[in-house]
């Protein structure tokens, strides 16, 4: 018995998280007919993809990669997305919000509106087109208060909607993977990871990431506490004063709603050190879409968002 105790304690917190995520990925491969892994080129989905390699290599991945593309992207993130898919020799499906706009299923008041919420529509269209029954996502419970309440295997009805009041109880690691026709499952292997765990893992695994995750000089405009990147899609206004500042992105989403933070961290260890002293949460420092109302994420999830 003492041997077990000693052996068990040899598994660190991070090893345990890694093994849990691999276990979940393998459950998805075994229990679903047509799963897909959501891969945007962002850091969390890059970690998820790395864990998928760990779960299945030397076999090919038992699912394609899927990116719901808002069209408002940072070019280096898209380049990284394509590069990773090519390196791994895995199939990448890109579902474009712009195609949904062309079809008329996504309507925006004006061209420059954030397309983040519109991703739910495009995602549901991709699910219908490819008949996906399970989607693996890199969302974490520490990100946001609605996510904190979501199951690892999160059931969605035939309209892709999450019903927080009627979630199936999730016990031990005995996941209930049963679906009725037309329903789908969203599965979150990184549920129990924190921002810090992600960076510790990126460091340990020596993972490549898009360069904008590390400190670089960028033109920004200040909007309250947020730093808005000046880009073609988000140009500076006439009265804005544009500054050049050393920044990095803590999260990467649609360009119109993702702000960088002031930083000099050039590698994962420096980021971990900065995060220790950060007094804003990951999304709080960077995401405009969450700040619209205290229930934004809950509402988006109910509509079929990740």
């Amino acid at each position: 018995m003492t041997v077990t105790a000693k052996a068990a304690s040899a598994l660190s917190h991070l090893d345990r998280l890694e093994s849990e995520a691999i276990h979940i990925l393998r459950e998805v491969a075994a229990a679903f007919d047509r799963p897909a892994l959501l891969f945007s080129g962002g850091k969390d989905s890059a970690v998820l993809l790395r864990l998928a390699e760990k779960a299945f290599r030397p076999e090919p991945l038992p699912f394609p990669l899927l990116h719901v593309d808002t069209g408002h992207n940072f070019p280096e993130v898209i380049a990284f997305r394509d590069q990773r898919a090519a390196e791994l020799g895995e199939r990448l499906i890109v579902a474009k919000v712009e195609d949904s706009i062309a079809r008329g299923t996504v309507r925006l008041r004006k061209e420059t509106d954030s397309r983040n919420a519109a991703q739910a529509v495009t995602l549901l269209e991709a699910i219908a087109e490819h008949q996906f029954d399970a989607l693996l996502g890199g969302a974490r419970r520490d990100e946001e208060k609605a996510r904190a309440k979501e199951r690892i295997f999160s059931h969605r009805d035939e309209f892709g909607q999450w019903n927080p009041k009627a979630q199936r109880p999730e016990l031990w690691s005995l996941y209930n993977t049963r679906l009725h026709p037309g329903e789908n499952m969203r599965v979150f292997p990184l549920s129990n990871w924190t921002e810090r765990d992600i960076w510790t893992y990126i460091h340990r695994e020596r993972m490549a990431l898009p360069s904008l995750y590390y400190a670089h000089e960028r033109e920004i405009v200040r909007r309250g506490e947020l730093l808005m990147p000046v880009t073609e899609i988000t140009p500076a206004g006439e009265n804005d004063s544009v500054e050049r500042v050393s920044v990095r992105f803590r999260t990467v989403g649609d360009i119109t709603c993702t702000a960088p933070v002031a930083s000099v961290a050039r590698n994962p260890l420096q980021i971990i050190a900065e995060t220790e002293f950060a007094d804003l949460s990951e999304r709080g420092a960077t995401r405009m879409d969450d700040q619209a109302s205290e229930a934004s994420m809950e509402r988006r999830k109910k509509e079929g968002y990740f």
Partner: protein
Amino acid sequence: MFDGSPAEGRDVLRFMTAGSVDDGKSTLIGRLLYDSKGLMRDQIAAISKAKHARADEGEIDLALVTDGLESEREQGITIDVAYRYFSTPKRAFVIADAPGHEQYTRNMVTAASTAEVAIILIDASRIIGKGLKSQTRRHAAIAKLMGLDVIVAVNKMDLLDWSRAAFEEIREGFERIARTLDLQPLAYVPISAKSGDNVARRGAADWYQGPPLLDILESAPPRETKLTAAFRFPIQRVARWGETDPGARRGYAGRVESGFVKVGDTVTAAPSLLPAIVREIRTFDGALDAAVTGQSVTLVLDRDLDLARGDTLASADVQTAKSVTADLCWLDTQAWQRGRRYLLRQGTRTTHAVIEQIHFVREVTELAAVSDATELKLNDIASVRVKALDALIADRFDDAPATGAFVLIDPVTHQTAAAGMIREAHDPQPRGPLAEESYEI
């Protein structure tokens, strides 16, 4: 190899909080996060400006940290399990915040299934002279059923001027419950979640000699240290590689749920009970000599046993049984119906099962057994006899929780109907104590 971050070497403790409505659970969690710097400035700002804040002006309503959903904020209650994360230099923590309403017992069971320790919270100001509430008894019973260690936190002591007599009265009341359940709490601690006394730091009660709550959590023993060393490895899927190679090989991918395994070990496949030797332990990062509880690996055996998902590789002590006695918590709004078939999931195996007999249902207030009960409905906890179509692993939940547990799923609605903990196997195979030598090769 890597020591750049203190998080790397730390272990993790998963704990849950249980209490009745308004005992201050959410405030306690808010306090732990706040005092361990697990709350960020924007999150504090969000709860300070939240629409439904209940705190006095100028004070943060810590409870709102965990009331995540809009509908909860409107009703001022917690309706589902929320997970929170924080760490201290000694340990990483995962908190499952389970609501206290009686109708949500299923959420406490859900939270307990992934926790090692339960903090049972008692509102001292409402107990004095009245005795403990029935829900406190129920929370203690569920913690016991699910094998958790218990810490009793007596909250709102500031409202009683930190009265030692009040604390002792509550402790004695809980000890009476604990005795009937054969439960030994790790600690009793008087706290004020609102002021923070004895939560993350020592506080107002000079008569209390013990450590604050956070210190107790930092030193609570991890669960593995109390379990048997029996090896259990439910196979998730069969991995194949080198298909074009005449020596094409297969491995069994899964996670070690209990004990450990080394290259060269003889393992027994269940339910077939056929032996084989572990030839390789593969991971993406290279071959291992041994794998321990919690580790996801792929095992290569020395012979072809034609195994598949649902089979379990185990140490030679493994037994199987088609009929078991189990404690069951009913989780579905649809009550049990005699004769109805359910899907039973244990490890990675899913089979069909029926509940043959209800031995007794525990009634809510005194937890006494009611032996003539004929129905099982939402939130009932019962001892039942379950009969399965295929053989189950005959593990007792207290020895090996990962394989001694199962869930029942309604095959029509697909709802998770019940959580089960095996207490006894009937007519286990192979019979009698196994001579270990017989499997040595």
